[in-house]
Each structure stands twice: as C-alpha cells, then as structure tokens.
C-alpha cells in the first residue's frame, strides 16, 4: 500500500477493500462486546421473569437455561445477519423470519412450563395463607394492593413536591442575583454528594421528636429533602438555557413577571420538569432504607418493605412468588422509563436540545 502511494499511484481498490474489512471487523467486535457486556445485566432480569412465570414452589432454573439456549444462538445469528446482509429489505425479511422461528422454538421448549399461579397474590388478599410453611401464621399480611397504593402515594407525593419546589427554586437561582447565591449553588452540590446513610440516626430522632415516625408523610419529607438539591440544580440548568429575550419580550408585550413565567418560560422547561419528575418518582418507588427505618405498621408498608417481609419472615421462602412480586414491582418503573425515554435522554447536566 505504502509502496503504491510512494510510487505515486495509490491502489484505490485495495485501499477500499481494506477499509471495508476494517469497518466490518470493528462492527463484529462491537457486537461481541455489547452482547458480553449486557449479559450480566440481562440474565438476572431474565431469571426473575422466567421463575415468575414458571417456577413452582422454589426457584427452578430449567426454563432460564432453556430460554438462554434458544435466545443466545438467535442473537449470534442475528449479529451475523446484520453484518453479512447489506440490502435493507432482505435484512428486514431475514430478521422477521429469525424472530418468528425463535419465538416458535421458545414456545415449544418452555411453553408447557408456563403458568400464572405465582401471581395469585394479586387477587388473593390473604397471601400469608398460601405461602409455603405459613400454615397457622394467620392474617399477618395486608393485601399487596395496600403496599402498592402506599408506594404510589409515597412516590407520587414526593414527585409533586420535588418538581414544584425545584422548578420555582431553579427559576429563582437562574434569574435573580442575591447575596450568597454562589455559596448556595455550591452548597447544593455538596449536599448532593453527601451520603444520605450517614444521616439516618439524626433523621430517626427528628422524626421521633416531631411525631412523624411510622407515617408516609415523614418518609416523603425526608426523601424530598434529599432529592431537592440535585433536582434544583438540574432545573436551574434548564432555565439557564431559556433566553432572557423571551421573558423581556413577554413583559414589554404587557405580561407581568408571573404571567411571563407561566405563559412563556415554563412551557420551555417542560422537558426538564418531566425528567425531574420521572427520576423523583422512581427514587420514591425504589425507596427502601428510609421506609425500613421509619415505618413499622404493616398497613404503611411500601412495595419494597412488602417484598422484604414476605421473603424474609416465612420459613422456606417461596422464590417463585417472590419473583412474581418482584416483577410486579419493577413493571411500573419499566413502563415509566419506556414512555419518558426521549425526555430523560435530554437531561445531560441540565440543558435543552433543539
């Protein structure tokens, strides 16, 4: 090659072939790394899914291995297809058939094992009676829907408080100068870096003194306080990206500052508000440490506590049902993520795209 260039006549065909080969090798390598890298993440979820829909009294992993045995070769085949077939229409056809075949084989191999029995907690309120080895424990467990409602309440209230507060605070920090503004901003970052665990004892004591122990309200307030610094920072970033001109324009057009804020500025940080809302909701939904510390009565259990007590308190855990409940627990998060994906990706360190 170098010789050809040195001779003054570069061999374009050879160079092109080499570039093509290299491109293909890079892609192949990329696929390998991605597949290997995602396996440790995907397999636990797959375990949860397969056990939840097929396990009977225990964590039988037959279905998991069978599923992997079908899915892995299909994945490899798909990667090869994507590398080998260049024509887009033929590729789509191949992909479609591959998907259909995989589903058929999967159905044949694991179909007989599938059942919905593990989800009985959804309609049977007295779950304790159906737990293995729980005979005589009696009616100790509330319905799972109570915990679901509590979690929803906790995450929802917390989300509303965080979004409203961080929006106003972010706007003020972005637009107004006041004494100690720089210090305040630094303080927000330091607070965010502070490990919340270290506050658990003082928070426990404070909750006890103000009488919010064993209430959802108490937990909501604690999480809001811990979530706010970062949320305010993110919202400030979104407000920073809204040009001054627009506000000035609205005010010379006859709007008051408040009207300008609601009519003109707020619609432009909608994406930021959605992103903050989603993260706040998920934070509340997954909360475990503070509900574990501050909540006792089982009527106040959230989903995470319910899951914990259910797997912990009964002799001989029913892993199949725990998995089913785990699936039930992550479902809202997955749905929310999927729906709001396009907003979340726009939240870098607070900025508006387009």
């Amino acid at each position, binding site marked *: 090659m170098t010789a050809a260039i040195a001779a003054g006549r570069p061999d374009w065909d050879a160079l092109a072939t080499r570039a093509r080969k290299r491109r293909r090798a890079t892609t192949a390598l990329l696929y390998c790394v991605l597949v290997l890298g995602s396996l440790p993440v995907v397999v636990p979820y797959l375990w949860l899914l397969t056990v939840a829909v097929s396990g009977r009294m225990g964590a039988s992993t037959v279905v998991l291995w069978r599923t992997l045995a079908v899915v892995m070769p299909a994945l490899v085949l798909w990667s090869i297809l994507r590398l080998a077939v260049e024509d887009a229409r033929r590729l789509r056809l191949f992909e479609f058939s591959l998907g259909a075949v995989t589903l058929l084989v999967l159905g044949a191999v694991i179909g007989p094992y599938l059942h919905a029995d593990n989800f009985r907690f959804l309609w049977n309120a007295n779950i304790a009676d159906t737990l293995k080895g729980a005979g005589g424990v009696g009616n100790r467990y509330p319905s799972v829907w109570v915990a679901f409602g509590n979690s929803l309440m906790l995450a929802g209230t917390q989300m509303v408080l965080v979004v409203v507060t961080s929006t106003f605070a972010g706007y003020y920090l972005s637009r107004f100068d006041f004494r100690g503004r720089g210090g305040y901003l630094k303080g927000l970052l330091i607070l965010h870096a502070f490990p919340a665990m270290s506050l658990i004892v003082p928070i426990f004591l404070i909750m006890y003194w103000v009488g919010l122990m064993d209430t959802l309200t108490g937990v909501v307030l604690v999480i809001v306080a811990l979530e706010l610094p970062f949320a305010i920072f993110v919202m400030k970033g979104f407000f920073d990206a809204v*040009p001054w*001109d*627009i506000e*000035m*324009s*609205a*005010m*010379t*057009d*006859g*709007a*008051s500052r408040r*009207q300008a804020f609601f*009519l*003109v500025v707020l*619609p*432009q940080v909608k994406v930021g508000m959605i992103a903050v809302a989603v993260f706040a909701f998920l934070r509340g939904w997954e909360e475990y440490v503070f509900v574990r510390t501050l909540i006792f009565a089982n009527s106040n259990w959230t989903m995470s506590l319910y899951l914990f007590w259910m797997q912990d308190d009964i002799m001989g855990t029913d892993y199949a049902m725990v998995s089913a409940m785990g699936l039930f627990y992550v479902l809202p998060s997955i749905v929310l993520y999927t729906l709001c994906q396009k907003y979340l990706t726009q939240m870098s360190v607070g900025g508006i795209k*387009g």
Partner: protein
Amino acid sequence: MAKIELRRVAKSWGEVAAVEPTDLTIGDGEFVAILGPSGCGKSTTLFMLAGIYTPTGGDILFDGQRVNDVEARDRNVGIVFQSYALYPNMSVRDNILFPLRFKDVDKAAAAARADAAARLVQVHELMDRRPGQLSGGQQQRVALARALVKEPQLLLLDEPLSNLDASLRLTMRSEIRSLQRKLGVTTLLVTHDQIEATTMADRVICMSRGRIEQVGTAEDLYHRPNSVFVAGFIGSPPINLLACSVDAGTLRVGEAKLRATGGAGECVLGVRPESVALGTGPFRGRVGDLEPHGRETIYHLETALGPLRALEAGASARFRLGDEVSFAISATLLFDARTTRRIEGAGADMPA
C-alpha cells in the same frame, strides 16, 4: 405615536457606567438609529426606553410625561429583538395575539388586528406554524407583526437584521423603512451596521463608550464627522487616519510636508479612500496590494505620507502590484489629536 425625550439619562452597573448622562429627543413619527460598536451603550439605552432597565439618573419622557417608574408592560412599546424572541411554544397566530391578551380587546377584534398585522408583513399564510418551522426572514416578520399589533407609541428595533443573510437584509431594510413611513410610528433602531443605520433612519446617533458622539444625517456623519471616532467608524473601506503635526502652516506627516489650512500642534489627518485620486497629482506612491471588488478596486499604497487606502471606481484595475503611481488628495479632514475633535475648515491637500 409619541415624542420621546431623554434628559440627562444615565445607567451604570455598580461602578461601571454603561451610559453617561445623555440628552436626546426623538420627534413624533421619526425614525432614528443609534449606531455604535458593541458595548457602547446603545442596547442599554434601548432597554431603558422599553422599561426593562431603570435609569440610574435623569428622566425619560414620553410626550412630556415622565415614565421612569412606569413598568415595561404599561409603556406600550413594541420591541423586535436580535434573536426575534418568538415564543416557541405558540403558533405564529398566538405569538402575534400575545400582546393583545393583556389589553382590553375582544376576541374578534383581536383576531382581526392580528390578521391585519400579519398581512402587513406578509406572514398571513403561516399563521398556524410554529416559530421553529419558519426561516429566519419569516421569524423576523412575525416578530415585527407582534411588535406592531399593539399599535405601539414607540417601536424599538434591536439589531433586527443581523441574523439574516445578506440579500434578505437588503429586502427587509427597505421593507421596514417603508412600513415605518406608512404607519408613522416613532422608531428607534439600534445597530452596529452603518449601512443599516444610514439607509433606514432619518437621523443617526453615533455612540461610543456610553456617550453620544454625534447626531446627524448620513451626510453629516460622513462628510462632517465631529470626532476621530465618528470618522473612523463611518465609511467602508474606512478612512485613512494619519498622525501628524502642524506648525505655522506646515503639516508634517510621515516623511512628507503639506501646506495646512488651520490646525496647530499634534493632529490627525483624515483622508477618505475615494478622495485619493490616482493617475496624476503632486504625490507619488507604490501599489503594495490591491483588492479587486468588481465594481471598484481598493489599492493599498505605500507613500511618503504613510500607508494609504485608495478607492477607484471602474470594473478593471488600472494599476498592478508594484506600480509607481502619482496621486492627488482632496477633501481632507483635520482633527486635534488631544481632544480628537475635528478642526472646522482645516485640512491639507497640497505639498509644502
């Protein structure tokens, strides 16, 4: 429509003075431009008139009434921002209707007025689009319609054309000008583009470092600049400014001596590029560089006076690189180097 007066109006940010105490009157229906480099206080002046900034001194009067403490939203002023500042979440119609929301106008009348304003600037066919779906020129027109729909007593234009491409700028320039004539609205344009200022406005205010340098017509500013700054800022290609000294009727510039009328001591000699006539004359120089522009040619001459820019009309260049040429100068301006003010009636165009 209103007559606008500024009496000793000043604005400072802490220690830094953005606008020095300034007096200015804009007549009813007049089109005035403030021209100056960035940071000269022209936009600050505009924002004070709009009510976005509060002056730190002096009085602003609309039709003789002091409005210093009147809020922006009550001043009935229309602004077109450099960025247009359209509301991205609203359609063009809602953008134009926005100022009327806060006025006592019933819905049908508001719609009619918005439609009329849109027609005026020819965006009536884009009413349902979002600002993001418009080209720069269209956004500019919508911003203009939004500023005009409230029938403002004062229209403020903040660098309205600088985000447009060259040909569109030319069209919008004359469109805004004729629109202003038609509506007779008192208008203040703020710009750093001298051509924009001189072609559009009845009067141009040249500002520098928070101070008004000169107020006048394009012709005043070009031929009778008050100061070295105005002479240097107005005109493209820029004027030749040569440091010199005058002693008893003799002006020394570079290695040359000229016969001076007026002036004494350290001075600055200004020669417009088109006042350097090539071909014949008492001075000699060498062509160091030349820029053909098609319609004209700009020569960079090395002369005994110092480096000189000369502008010659004509499609093709008469001289080439390295040519020795004779030339004459005329219509020279002489400034006092210390005060930078122009010395009335002084000049020097013949060798001593």
